[in-house]
């Protein structure tokens, strides 16, 4: 299991959350599990950081939330993307790709 520097998580956590929620609305643990599954365990999400990030994104106007029943019929707070959230996702995705390819180019050069 890789220990991730919080800075790295901090930088990418917003993008991961937005991307995850662009597919379907989920509650906190749902988001955490999805991120973990899709990244095949590379990203471990700490509930404190994740829920704080969700509050932040909600206040930024990118997410909305409502309390609903889960499949196990427990009440949970579900988050979904707003219109500005979708726009933000596009921006962050493009931004990430630009950075990632730049880093990749650099690494290739090195090799």
């Amino acid at each position: 299991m890789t220990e991730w520097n919080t800075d790295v998580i901090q930088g990418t956590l917003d993008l991961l959350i937005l991307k995850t929620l662009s597919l379907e609305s989920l509650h906190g643990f749902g988001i955490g599990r999805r991120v973990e599954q899709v990244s095949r365990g590379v990203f471990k999400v700490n509930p404190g950081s994740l829920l704080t990030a969700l509050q932040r994104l909600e206040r930024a106007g990118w997410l909305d939330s409502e309390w609903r029943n889960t499949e196990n019929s427990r009440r949970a707070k579900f988050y979904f993307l707003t219109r500005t959230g979708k726009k933000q996702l596009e921006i962050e995705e493009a931004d990430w790709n630009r950075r990632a390819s730049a880093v990749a180019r650099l690494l290739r050069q090195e090799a």
Partner: protein
Amino acid sequence: MSFWRQVTHGLRGLLRRHERDREIDDEVQNYFEEMTAAYRERGFSDNDARRAVRQECGNLHAAKEQVRTYGWENTIRTWGADLRCAGRQLRRNPVFAAAAILMLGIGIGANTAIFTFVNSVLLRPLPYPSSNRLAIILSELGNSSRAPASMFELYQMRQRSRVFDQIAGIWVTNRELPDKGDPEQGKAGVVTSNFLQLFTTRPMLGRFFSREDDLENAPSTIVLSYPLWVRKFGADPRIIGTSVRLGRGSSVVIGVLPRDFRLIFPEDASVPPEVDYFQSIPIGPWEPNGPGFLHLVGRLRNAESLAAAQAELASIAAQINSIGERTKIANYHLYAFSLQDDDVREVRRTLYLLFGGVAFVLLIGCANVANLLMVRARQRLHETTIRAALGASTFRLIQQILAETLVTALFGGAVALLIGWAALQAIVAVEPASFANLGQVSLDLRVLAFTFAIAFLISVIVALAPISAVRRLKLAEDLKRSGRSTTPKQSKALIVLVASEVALAFVLLIGTGLLLRTFAHILRVDPGFRAENVFTLRVSVPNYEALREVQRALTALPGVQSVSTVSHLPLDDGGNWYDYYWKDGAPVDQQNTVMADMRSVLPGYFDTIGAQLIQGRDFTDSDDAAHQHVAVIDEILARRLWPGESALGKRVNVSDSPKGPFQFERDWLVVVGVVRHVQCHTLTATVRPQIYLPYALAPRPSMSMVIRTAGAVPDLVSSARKQIAALNRNLPITHLEPLSAVIDRARATSRFVSVLATLLAIVALQLALGGIYGVLSYCVVLRTAEIGIRMAVGAQRAEVMRLVFAQGFLPVALGIVTGAILSAVSMPLLDRLLFEVKPDNPRIYLLAIVAIFVLSGIAMLLPVLRAVRIDPMTALACE
């Protein structure tokens, strides 16, 4: 949009805190439950699932706390909590709270009051258009400095100056007021026609003087002050352009000055702030050796500096000196001073010293509060350590201490505003006239800001000490000691604080001692006359006969011993009359160089005011123009002109009877008497020698009657009024007051400074003693166990007393030594405020040392008694 969400969500978090907290709790709880359920689905047992979750995500409550701390409203919430906690802490220790708040309040309050005062006198620019370009021009000739200029000099300067765009002059004299009703005396400003423009932009009504008013056959014109316009002419705007009676003639009112018009001149210029009306005097060449009577004000051209003006005046002085008889005058100089600086010249030093004293009090107050906070921080070190051990970040610890000091400082600031307001009222109430040159003084917004800036600054400064204690926390070490009393190593910081308080208080005590001693000397100083049972009033009389009639009428009153009259009362702030003199046979270059105060009197004046005739005789009724012209001079002049000889029968050249409005004819007079010098301007300084002339030779339009009575005469004022009115209804009478009133006024500055200094010293001393008491009490508490052990193994009470006293007196002794050194360095600054006491007066030092030792000993009594009463068993059981 997102900003809006920030606000609404934040407000919800603040206003519906519990709802939001519950929602977060639910969400976190749900997260953990979902996770546990997920583990169970993978086949974990209930227990294993929970353990796995805890391992992966840590503590549930920590997570909740983390999520809760998000958001701006949370900062407010923690500050709110800290402030509430601080409030609780202060309430729980009311003595500490009251002490800290009062100390800050007194220090800041006194500072605010003095700052407001200094601000209004020193820092605020003069209320004149381009006031920074106004300069006073003074001449120095022979051995008189700061002398007024003659019309000749003004004319020459105006002809030659390039640096000044205007040079104007004023002379204030007592004259009859322009009037419709009963005649009355007032102050007339005789000004050059360009004068008023320098001090205000435009008249409230009408116009200023112009060159046309200076033309030879132009009608006489006057400009009224606002108060005179209201009082005499019922604020009637139609007065402009009309002719009013003025003395024996008439004059046309051409303008009224604005309400706030005030003349702000140096104290020695004899130009009072309020002048009733103005007349213009044409600027002309006049004769070179005419009398100096004009106080000059020049306005610098835009790009010119005071230094340039100074250089130019030096060359103009040389040129003036080469015209006519001026050639022969040695040491003739012209100087320019900024009006602003020159006006506060004498007052400035006093104010800065008061400011210094107040700063000392503030420093002592701060030291005390820092002391209290440090003691408290130490008492709470254990609590702080536990908080740190439980995971409070240094930032949160600092925030909490900051909150506490902030609350203290804010309360202190509020108290300071009250104290400052009260102190300012008190200062303004006892303020001597010499300071009252800028009108109203009221606490303004800038001062308010200044106060709170100080309050915050102090809160930060005093917060630093406890915070540094927190930073140096060694958690484990402190916990090991686990609440047992610390070793009785007295902190160096506490010694330094107490010692500096004592040192500052010592300096203030020395300064106050010197000022009080000065005031005592001023109370005892012999002004050269005896003011008891002398009553004075000012009256305008047309001629010698009328004056003699008034004298005779007043002498006839019951209880009156003698009555005489003088043109200028001693120590009175009204106009002054001074002129050149020289002795018979003086070479031409010594003529027109030195000046004496001239006084016109009737026979009996010296007896009536109790001045002492040393040699020769008083004037008699036959000393008039028809007989030999005579004068009485004072001892100083006699010594100066004829050292080692008798002055009687010698001749002195002075101006005597008036010729025209401003000039006096020069004549030789024979000295027939020598009197003791009468203090004329201040009680402490001899400004100029005095020459008395018989009224018959030197009639003046306004005279002060002096009436000596056998004792208290109850209705003297009304009967004197009746008596004079019976002679002539039209004789204006003003300034009815006992002669002692002028002495009281002359003492006012010294009294004012002494009272303020005494108050400051008392406050400083009390604060310092409070500091000594507080620190020693704390040390005794710290050493309880040690003292208990000492007593248990046989120490006597006397030894314990010695022990505690020694600990208390160490910083006091250090403080006295430091204070003595500081005083030795700083007291010479007071020199000019002192009178007949040297700044290093050993008696005052001795007194201060004894006082501080005795008083601090008294402050130590309670802690010492507490130490002595320690019961060894209880003390050891506490451990």
